[in-house]
C-alpha cells in the first residue's frame, strides 16, 4: 500500500502534535514509534499520522486508510489513551 505524504485533505496536523501529551505517558519519544494499523495493516510512524484536534481530544488516523489509530485526551487530572486501532507499537530503544 502506498501511503501519501503529509496530512490528509482535512487533517490540520500530523502526529508530531501528539508528542507532547504522549510524553506524559511514555518514557521514550513516541513520535518516532511505528504503529501497525489494525484495519489495513499499514505501518506508519506516529509523526506521520493524520491528526485532528487538539480539542476535545487528539485523534490520530492511519495515513493509509483513515481509521482511528490513537486517541489522547488530557483532562484536568488525567491522560486518557486509546490505542484500540493499533495492533502493534514499535518504539526504538537503546541497545541492551
Amino acid at each position, binding site marked *: 500500500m502506498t501511503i501519501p505524504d503529509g496530512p*490528509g*485533505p*482535512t*487533517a490540520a496536523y500530523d502526529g508530531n502534535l501528539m508528542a507532547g501529551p504522549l510524553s506524559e505517558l511514555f518514557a521514550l519519544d513516541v513520535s518516532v514509534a511505528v504503529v501497525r494499523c489494525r484495519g489495513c495493516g499499514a505501518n506508519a510512524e506516529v509523526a506521520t499520522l493524520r491528526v*485532528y*484536534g487538539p*480539542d*476535545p*481530544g487528539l*485523534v490520530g*488516523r492511519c495515513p493509509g486508510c*483513515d481509521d*482511528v489509530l490513537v*486517541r489522547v*485526551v488530557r*483532562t*484536568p487530572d*488525567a491522560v*486518557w489513551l*486509546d490505542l484500540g486501532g493499533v495492533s502493534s507499537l514499535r518504539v526504538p530503544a537503546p541497545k541492551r
Partner: protein
Amino acid sequence: MDFVTRGFQGRPRGRDDRLPPGQYLTGDFPVLSAGPTSNVDHDEWELWVATEDGTRHTWSWAELMALPAETVTVDIHCVTSWSKLDTEWRGVSLDTLLADVGTAADFAMVHSYGGYTTNLPLEDLLDGQAWVAYGYEGDDLRPEHGGPARLLVPHLYFWKSAKWVRGIELMLEDSPGFWEQLGYHDYGDPWREQRYQGD
C-alpha cells in the same frame, strides 16, 4: 426551577445569564472534528433508527424533506468553552421521527458517517429538545458544520450534537460514545459544567 432561580435576580435575562459556567461568548462558529469532513450526497444519504429488537426504520433524503420541519433559535455550548447565542436552525424534530417507533429503550447511541458516536438518554431526544438539522441561518448546513444533516441537542454540550448523523440506535442499557469512552462526561449538561467524568 430555572424560572425561580433566574426570576429571583429581579431583572430580565441578559447575555450573562445565558452563559453557562466556564464558557465565553463567540461570534464565530469554530469547526472541531475528530476526522475528515464527510461529504455525503443526498442520493446516498439515509437516516436509520434501530430499536432494541432489531427493527429498523429508514428515511431517504427526500423522505426527510417531506416531513414537517421546524425553525428553532437556540444557544449552543461547546465543551471547549465557547458558546454561541441565538443560532437559527431548520430541521425535523426527533419527536416526529420517533413518533411511530415502538421501543422500551432508555438510551440512544447516535452514529455518524465517518464513524463518530455519542450516547444520550432517550428522554433528552424527545419533547422538543432535539432535531435532525439540515439548515443553518437560512442556508443549507455546510459539510464542515455537519451537513447535509446533524443532530441538534442544544441543552447538552455540543459534542452530543453529532455531525453527519446517519443513525440512532435505541438501547436498553447505556453505553459510552466516542468521547464518552475517553474521559468526557456521560451526560454533558453545560449548566452543571459536566465536562469530564466525575464532574
